[in-house]
């Protein structure tokens, strides 16, 4: 059979897309639909598993296998799937509430186990679907439906949390930047094991403009510091340097020597470096790209190696032998 080249259309399902006008989810969807043909995996081997939230509607719009599960549990369900079916490519689609609030536990455990999941965290810093309560990534002091005088919680930094949970791959990107998002998807799908992709996503209805300061056409080039392995970490105006005491900091280019800019190393085994990077972003200057990408066997591979190893040594199990056991007697 001749190889069939798939197109974006082949990955578009017949379901009407139902997000609010202007929602950042649209462009993430379009990018994904455009990216999947290039992934080179047949449609039937791709599965999207989501929790609950606006973002979690994502699987309906893709002509692949998909499950819109329950709130916060997608990483658990997807773990069971990918561990038992390592031939599949499994994406988890989740929101800041879904992943980090109710689903926080499954999230950190999937990362530490390095289960082969590509986790796309749509971070709009708000609960969209339930109409605008603050989320675990909302900035402190935020006025929302459930915090009329301002929220009191220190937000999670998803990259820091992921690193604290032993993640092997973490990246950050932006809904509207299709090229960047595509690049990150390429890197994530190449990575064996868990890949966490934080996507800054605008919710025009309940948290509009959360990321405007870095999306604005004029200041954009200065706002985004790109993490590219082997290249200096900088934007057109800012860069990352190492201070005398060893800590990393972000500085205006004008204040530093070009030569002092840190050259990005996504493959450092010690996660401290990536952790340091995760602390540097400000409201106006944000690090995007792959923070960390290190090799560790995926959980599913380890499981199957273990099973195969036992079978190689002891042979396939024989049911009659199992049932008979070693301590039986005969009545005749």
């Amino acid at each position, binding site marked *: 059979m001749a190889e069939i080249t798939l197109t974006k259309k082949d990955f578009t399902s017949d379901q009407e897309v139902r997000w609010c006008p202007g929602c950042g989810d649209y462009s993430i969807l379009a990018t994904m639909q455009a990216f999947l043909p290039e992934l080179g995996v047949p449609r039937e081997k791709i599965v999207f598993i989501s929790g609950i939230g606006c973002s979690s509607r994502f*699987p309906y719009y893709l002509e692949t296998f998909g499950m819109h599960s329950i709130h916060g549990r997608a990483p658990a369900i997807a773990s069971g799937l990918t561990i038992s079916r390592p031939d599949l490519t499994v994406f988890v689609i989740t929101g800041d509430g879904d992943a980090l609030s109710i689903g926080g536990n499954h999230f950190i455990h999937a990362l530490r186990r390095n289960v082969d999941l590509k986790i796309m965290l749509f971070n709009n810093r708000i609960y969209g679907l339930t109409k605008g309560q603050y989320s675990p990534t909302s900035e402190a002091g935020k006025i929302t439906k459930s915090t009329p005088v301002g929220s009191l919680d220190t937000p999670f930094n998803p990259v820091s949390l992921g690193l604290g949970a032993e993640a092997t791959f973490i990246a950050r990107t932006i809904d509207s930047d299709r090229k960047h998002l595509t690049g990150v998807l390429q890197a994530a799908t190449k990575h064996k094991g868990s890949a966490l992709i934080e996507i800054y996503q605008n919710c025009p209805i309940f948290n509009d403009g959360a990321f405007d300061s870095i999306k604005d056409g004029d200041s954009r080039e200065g706002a985004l510091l790109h993490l590219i392995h082997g290249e200096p970490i900088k934007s057109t105006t800012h860069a990352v340097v190492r201070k005398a005491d060893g800590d990393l900091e972000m500085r205006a280019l004008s204040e530093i020597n070009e030569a002092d800019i840190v050259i990005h190393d996504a493959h450092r085994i010690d996660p401290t470096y990536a952790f340091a990077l995760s602390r540097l972003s400000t409201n106006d200057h944000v690090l995007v790209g792959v923070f960390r990408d290190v090799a560790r066997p995926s959980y599913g591979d380890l499981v199957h190696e273990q099973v195969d190893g036992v079978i190689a040594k002891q*042979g396939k199990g024989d049911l009659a032998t199992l049932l008979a056991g070693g301590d039986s007697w005969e009545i005749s």
Partner: protein
Amino acid sequence: MSKTIVSMDQVTIRFAGDSGDGMQLTGDRFTSDTAILGNDLATLPNYPAEIRAPTGTLPGVSSFQLHFADHHIQTAGDAPDVLVAMNPAALKANMRDMPRGSTIIVNKDEFSARNLTKVGYETNPLEDGSLESYKVHGIPLTSMTVGALAHLPLSRKEAERAKNMFALGMLSWMYHRPTKATEKFLTAKFSKVPDILEANLVAYRAGWNYGETTEEFSVSYEIAPAPQAKGKYRNMSGNLALAYGLIAGAQCAKLPLFLGSYPITPASDILHELSKQKKFGVITFQAEDEIAAVGAAIGASYGGAMGITSTSGPGVALKSEAIGLAVMLELPLIIVDVQRGGPSTGLPTKTEQSDLLQVMFGRNGESPVPVLAASTPTDCFDMAVEAVRIATAYRTPVFLLSDGYIANGSQPWRIPEVDSLPDLHVDFAKTQENFQPYARDPKTLARPWAVPGTPGLEHRIGGIEKANLTGDISYEPANHDFMVRTRAAKVAGIEVPDLVVDDPDGAEVLILGWGSTYGPVRAAIDVLRESGAKVAQAHIKYINPFPKNLGEVLSKYPKVILPEMNLGQMAMLIRSEFLKDIISFNQVRGLPFSTTELVEATLEVLNG
């Protein structure tokens, strides 16, 4: 010295000691040797509550009871004929169960003033006359064991540890148990530590010889083999049978078995056992919590495996939201609930039947799930296979109920021929045009099992109400009503065997049981019939749906007695469905019913 040999038809022995004294092992060995001899038997281990208590205290007492006979028996016995107590705590904790006239064998060495005070004995019961109505044998088990091992290069502590084997040897002599199997067992177990092996073997034989030679015991006992159907047998506990049943079921269905589980007493052993069976391709996933455990099982089932999750009551509570998802997804899933005492943490090591209404109704919305309940340790095997049949044929989550009593209890099991197991193979959906994920098999109402990897079947499912046939999201009022009723009809239509009634005499009173009350009820029926009473028996193993003939059976008996280890949960289901005034007999003591109390309760109904 020549000793008298007495023939008996049945005996109940309880071994009791500190958690560290190896009583479970001792009991297990005695059981195996008894099984080999061909007696029928039933066992009941009794672990101390979760935490290991300090040595020599009452909460630290662990015991193992074995009932064996020359005829068919049902329970581990109400009251022991013989108690072996390794220390004062074991004596004190078990005395209340000992009938006057029974035999008590104690390790005299442990009855020091210090140990006695620890458990609140003000005087030594071996000396103060309080045990006058019993046949007491105070034997220096520790010092005799140490003495027997003096020639070995062991510390005193190491030597002392073999005293349970001394006791086992002694009892083996007393009941004419064969010793070969235990010697073989010890040899395998301690093959890497020759000194310890030697110590155990020597202590075991020394105990046997002590029985044979000493004047302490003048009588030994013989119990003839029980007539049993031809075949190969082994001793089987409920949890092991359940694990084997799951493996067998998955093999019959030609599906890989995936267990997602989080440890919890008394269900953990199922996880432990399945994690050993990698050679069957079994994958066990110890999840971060119960929600992840059931979630992973659902994911595995979605991918075409037999997804299973095992837990106890508190874990079921946590899994309930995800089980609701499985109801909506209509995918196979088995949830094993080994029930324990509740509510909340309750009595983790004790038995109870109080999760029934939880498994029936503990989910939001109209969320029907089939429920099966195993009746005896070995029945756990059969019901596990049945759970696989129903889950896969009907694409539905299935609850399989067991409980602490049958999970840890054991009985002889006639090993089935693999060929006799049912063919449970079901087909996955195949590549096709216009695939409809919520079209249904007209007979079973099952929807297609369309696993990822099948070209052309790409589709999306989820927990929001689905449109009939297409499975798309639907908020249509009529569709919702239709789907709610269809899911209910699917479960109601599951084929289950009719209820079997045992009623040789045309009785007016029916004792209805479910789950683990089978053994106690059966034992009570035997006693009642022997005494001339007419009683019928029927046992419910299929709870949702009920056997089709249940209503008819109920209508035949003016009086139906329903004993349950809860406050009447099955009674509530039956009353509401059949409007029949059941006579409930409830007990929530963390213990199985005793034969005596069931007999008495039944006599009261018969006579009143």
